[in-house]
């Protein structure tokens, strides 16, 4: 029987051993108890968590930590500069303008998971906005919205097919799209530079409608918390039944508690203003659905697999071309949905919609939130965290009357660079710690 002195033995000893066997073993192997390291962490109580946290930081598994610190720093700095940054008004404004780019950033997360990039997402958003705008003037609103979104899906499929089937680097395909679709957008708009949102259009409601009833925000908060708690509890129970390491009830309660503070404070803030914004509800819905797809379905697993090793994915029978094409379709679709939010926020379709720094905002949001540029690592929630950071900066600068693009561009650029540096350094650290 071979012994591995260094490896922790988590598997139960397969056969009864004689005393000779045990004596023959190295002392190190015998000394390590047969439990999963994660269980060990929990058994040590609070100290175990601190040790685990330190170990993760040292080995470069920082996850969302930089962005959480970033959000706190932004809050403190702007609060100090303006005196009234942390207000329910700003919460409302940030959320309102975060939804569009945030939804586009969710699509970017999918593409980044493959280790690719979609530079066309801003132009796709702009084109989808103008397709909707032009069609909405002489077509039922819902049909125009559907066609606008489908135009994004179609453009995404085009990017994906050229990339996956012909083998043109995604960076080049989408760069061509970035220019081409912006041109097409201007062409679709024709003589008009703007088309105002028709009265009664759902697109107008996207950023204007609020669930004004106080119960809406609190109700949603309680619903989210209950779902979160029950899902964790159920998972823990199932793991316990299967005799696998599971979260103790105390940890689930702690997690739910932390989430509860955040969610309830946000709900209170929204209720101080106009209520629960529809844009937030849709954004959260998209996040929940995409998170489910990525983490709990075969398709999501395949996306991660293609991002982690194409050869391995192919040998496992995964249709790599389809995964690539479909991911770009998702990116295009979410880009188009984001475009409708942009149109809603600016009051209608516009020639310059989706232009400017929109594209960089989306990519930056995904990366700042903690999705790796190198593929295979990330969560859709990074889109939410990242866009909150960026939109908070924009809001803070607006409040300081620094609305000019100059400062905003420089700061956004710097934040993006810092995020990529953190990503690269953490990857290097992970490599040297044997975790990448």
């Amino acid at each position, binding site marked *: 029987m071979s012994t591995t002195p260094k490896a922790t033995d*988590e*598997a139960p000893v397969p056969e009864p051993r004689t005393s000779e066997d045990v004596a023959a073993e190295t002392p190190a192997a015998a000394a390590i108890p047969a439990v999963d390291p994660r269980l060990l962490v929990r058994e040590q109580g609070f100290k175990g968590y601190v040790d685990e946290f330190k170990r993760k930081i040292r080995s470069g598994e920082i996850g969302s930590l930089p962005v959480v610190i970033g959000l706190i720093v932004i809050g403190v700095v702007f609060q100090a500069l303006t005196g009234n940054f942390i207000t329910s008004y700003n919460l409302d404004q940030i959320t309102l303008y975060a939804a569009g780019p945030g939804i586009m950033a969710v699509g970017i997360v999918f593409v980044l998971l493959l280790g690719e990039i979609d530079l066309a997402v801003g132009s796709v958003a702009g084109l989808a906005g103008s397709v909707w705008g032009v069609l909405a003037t002489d077509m039922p609103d819902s049909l125009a919205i559907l066609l606008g979104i489908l135009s994004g899906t179609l453009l995404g499929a085009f990017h994906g097919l050229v990339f996956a089937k012909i083998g043109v680097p995604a960076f080049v395909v989408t760069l061509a799209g970035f220019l081409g679709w912006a041109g097409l957008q201007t062409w679709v708009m024709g003589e008009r530079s703007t088309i105002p949102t028709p009265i009664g259009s759902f697109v107008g409601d996207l950023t204007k409608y609020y669930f004004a009833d106080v119960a809406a925000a609190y109700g949603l908060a309680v619903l989210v918390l209950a779902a979160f708690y029950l899902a964790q509890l159920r998972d823990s129970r199932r793991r316990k039944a299967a005799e696998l390491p599971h979260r103790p009830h105390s940890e689930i309660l702690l997690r739910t508690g932390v989430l509860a503070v955040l969610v309830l404070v946000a709900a209170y803030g929204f209720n101080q203003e106009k209520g629960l914004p529809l844009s937030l509800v849709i954004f959260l819905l998209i996040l929940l659905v995409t998170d489910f797809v990525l983490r709990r379905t075969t398709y999501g697993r395949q996306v991660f697999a293609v991002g982690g090793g194409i050869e391995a994915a192919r*040998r496992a029978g995964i249709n790599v071309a389809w995964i690539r094409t479909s991911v770009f379709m998702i990116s295009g679709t979410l880009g188009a949905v984001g475009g409708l939010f942009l149109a809603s926020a600016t009051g209608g379709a516009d020639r310059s919609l989706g232009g400017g720094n929109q594209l960089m905002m989306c990519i930056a949001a995904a990366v700042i939130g903690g999705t790796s540029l190198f593929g295979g690592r990330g969560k859709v929630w990074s889109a939410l965290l990242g866009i909150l950071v960026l939109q908070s900066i924009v809001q803070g600068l607006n409040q300081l009357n620094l609305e000019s693009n100059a400062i905003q561009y420089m700061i956004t650029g710097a934040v993006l660079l810092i995020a990529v540096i953190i990503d690269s350094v953490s990857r290097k650290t992970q490599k040297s710690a044997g975790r990448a």
Partner: protein
Amino acid sequence: MSQTPVLALRGIFKRFGAVQVLSGVDLEVHAGEVVALVGDNGAGKSTLVKTIAGVHPIDEGVIEWEGRPVEISRPQDSQNLGVATVYQDLALCDNLDVVANLFLGRELKKGGVLDEVAMEKRAKDLLSTLSIRIPSVRIPVAALSGGQRQVVAIARALVGDPKIVILDEPTAALGVEQTAQVLDLVERLREQGLGVILISHNMADVKAVADTVAVLRLGRNNGTFPVATTTHEEIIAAITGATDNAVTRRQARTAEVAQ
């Protein structure tokens, strides 16, 4: 050992363009037998293995599975029969954890949703029956050592309950201790009644675990030896072609008797 081989190749021919890679190769693998496939570079080992794995369909010859002739023209055909291949480049997804890698391409599902609990449980059972020790089945494969990655790759091949496992140079990149772990694993596969085809350049490994050595030379069989009664030198001679005449064979025999 059963009389009917699980897998038998008879008179396999394979040509790539003008190059005749395999000419009339025979090979038999029984249940619970480790067959080492050895030969110099370019002898056709990899091609032979790829014909079994369905990567390269054969031009001529018969492949028999449990006595019945079968056709293997795609990798899926081979997998469906019960052949699992572990290639030299392990092809694991570094970012996915051990469980995800083991079940990649055949995830267990419950109502259309990934059943992580069932997969983790089966992964643990599988690893423990093979006495594979890994710190945690939930760490990314990137965090494992070369030997651990190799045993994960082999374990991955076993998820589909194969009857024949093909290992392509499993110890080539490993250190002494890790090599021992992989060889232990090969022995456990044999104990479980699997047929193993082991490609190796390392004679020590071959002598250590194989029951039979099949030598290929320039695309032809150059002898099949029972390991127990064959010397290191005889195998080397068959690989390099030094046994091509009766004289050397006789010399080798008399030298052995003299010792």
